[in-house]
């Protein structure tokens, strides 16, 4: 059964490493639904790439072993499967509305614990953190209320417990 999997990859932060990882994924016919990357160890120059992809367990395992073959890849794991990981995403959502719709959007944002980070007389920009599912739900609710623009970071993920990747 195909489902979403979140994969975390630790890589040497060297030029071209992101292109190498992404190129391998697309070159072997997989799709990426979201992607985040940043250096996580400045001293050792290690970056963490997290991406969400669609597939069954076997194809994701194959993808991971292909990734592990890349020279600058130190580790790659399927957070969704291996560790029951925690996934978080941030979104900035712009809603353009006046009157009752504007009030309603503010009320709902409160229920989602979203922050208002910019406002004019006819617009809000909300900042929202949470699981991708929560962000999807928020966007659904904002759609009839004047949703105008969305920017999402993509998923970052980490495993529960004391164990280290």
């Amino acid at each position, binding site marked *: 059964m195909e489902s979403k999997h979140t994969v975390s990859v630790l890589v*040497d932060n060297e*030029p*071209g490493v992101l*292109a*190498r990882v992404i*190129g*391998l994924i697309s*070159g072997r016919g997989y799709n990426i639904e979201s992607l985040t990357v940043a250096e996580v160890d400045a001293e050792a120059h290690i970056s963490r790439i997290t991406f969400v992809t669609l597939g069954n367990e*076997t194809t994701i*395992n*194959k993808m991971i*072993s*292909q990734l*592990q*073959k*890349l*020279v*600058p890849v*130190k580790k790659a794991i399927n957070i969704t499967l291996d560790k029951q990981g925690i996934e978080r995403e941030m979104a900035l959502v712009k809603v353009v509305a006046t009157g009752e719709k504007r009030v309603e959007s503010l009320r709902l944002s409160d229920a989602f614990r979203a922050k208002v980070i910019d406002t004019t007389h006819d617009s809000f920009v909300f900042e929202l953190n949470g699981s991708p599912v929560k962000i999807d739900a928020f966007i659904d609710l904002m759609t009839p209320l004047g949703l105008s623009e969305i920017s999402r970071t993509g998923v970052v993920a980490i495993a529960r417990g004391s164990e280290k990747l």
Partner: protein
Amino acid sequence: MVSAQLTGAEMVLQAFEDHKVDTLFGYPGGAVLPIYDELAKGKNSIHHYLVRHEQGAAHAAEGYARSSGKVGVLLVTSGPGVTNAVTGLADAMMDSIPLVCISGQVPSHLIGTDAFQECDAVGITRPCTKHNWLVKDINDLSRILHEAFYVAASGRPGPVLIDIPKDIQFQTGTYIGPETIKHKSYRPKLKASIDNINEALKLIVKAQKPIFYTGGGVINSGNAAVQLLREFVRLTGFPITSTLQGLGAFPGDDDQFIGMLGMHGTYEANMAMHDCDLLINVGARFDDRITGKVDEFSPNSKKIHIDIDPSSINKTIDVDVALVGDVAHVLEDTIKLWKSNVYKTDKPAVKSWWSMIDKWKEKDSLGFNDSKTTIKPQFAIQRLYELTKEKDTYVTTEVGQHQMWAAQFYKFNKPNRWITSGGLGTMGFGLPAAIGAQVAHRDKLVIDIAGEASILMCIQEMSTAIQHKLPVKIFIINNQYMGMVRQWQELLHDKRYSHSYTDALPDFVKLAEAYGAKGIRVQKPSELDKGIQEMIDYDGPVIFDCVVDENENVYPMIPSGKAHNEMLLGDENEDSEISDEGKVLV
């Protein structure tokens, strides 16, 4: 030398010396002039072989590497220099051949401006190299050079590329010797877990219908692996088959060897693969030419897989025991445990398995109807084999029917003697690869078994052979068709031979003479031996135009989308229907 102040160009040559590189294939151009200038200064012992096209440089480096077990090195310029080399890099990637390609790049400040002869070399070669580097700082160069040789040759070998902007080649920086450089993270695993080996041994002891299926990984692992494989196969008494790339790891004329397997493998090898109860894969990768229809591949067997590349495990075929490691290391531990536990095989069962295999052998699947009037291509290769087998001959091939006949009818008793483009299937490979093999083995007989279509793809390298006095022999199986294309059109497209006939072929004898080589043409079976002998005896490059029966096909054949036990054995059973699903396969 631990460190010194050198220019970038000097560093490249110093690194070659430190890594014992004495042979270089290349073609100069604007962006590599500083390195070529260093070569001209003659302060080093590097022999540079000027090719006529960068694809030739890459294939020559492959032929050199495959025949010698060393890393092949090539030097090309920016832009078209590197794009021309791409086919060779992709070929080396597929067949796991260690290459280091140095490419020149436009100066750093011009990168990204669409400068003359600029291309994104690392971008273009990223998917067809094991790793690549763009050098941005002169002080990174020596580390990158040493890492490149390490990455190319260790683990599953492969091609790497270092792209060096011209300004970096001129700059002076600190060169650090290889002894102090260690790659920060790449450490391929060489030894498999002992528990897994024990598990494999349990399967081997119990096996009633076992088979060894060996591949290019044995050759890549080196001579120790070859000797250990031979020892273990003899200890067990099991039958052994090999992929195209693995030929020569086990003696081709040995009784335990049952021929190549796969699409054009022998009947006995493929039937044994289908019916076995234990399959021991040593350094092969379950390629689609081998497996045929995946869901009907060796359906009743337990599978052991020895491979240094963890991503090969369960990639297309699920296995029961995975031994991730270098073939030599794994076999060494395996044999040790076998001996210390005084293991025995199930001799009576294996004996009756052999009698089954002997029955299949009786089919004589490589048999062909010989002719007194026209030369059959199979006969040509048989004669070539008979007349050269006493010499330590190196054989390269192009790609197509002739390649398969060479694999079927030329028997290899030693590793590294057979050099062919398997994974990528690159027409034009054979001549430059033969040049590379001849460079590595100056006094040996090197033959490129070619087709008349393939040979034209890199024919310009004749000039290289002449210039460097490399007496390669090009044995063209000339049937005037792209034979393998025609064979598929016959089987799959109702004999509509769309553009697979080569009209206006050159006169190969005159072509040879134009280059300054010898040309020989033979059209009658009765004159074949004399012609071949003349070719062998000639001290210089020869193009041998062997005019053969136009209509022969390669058999046996597992048609696309079929299982191992559904082989075609000859033209008479061509009516076997190929499904639409099979037709889309290549």
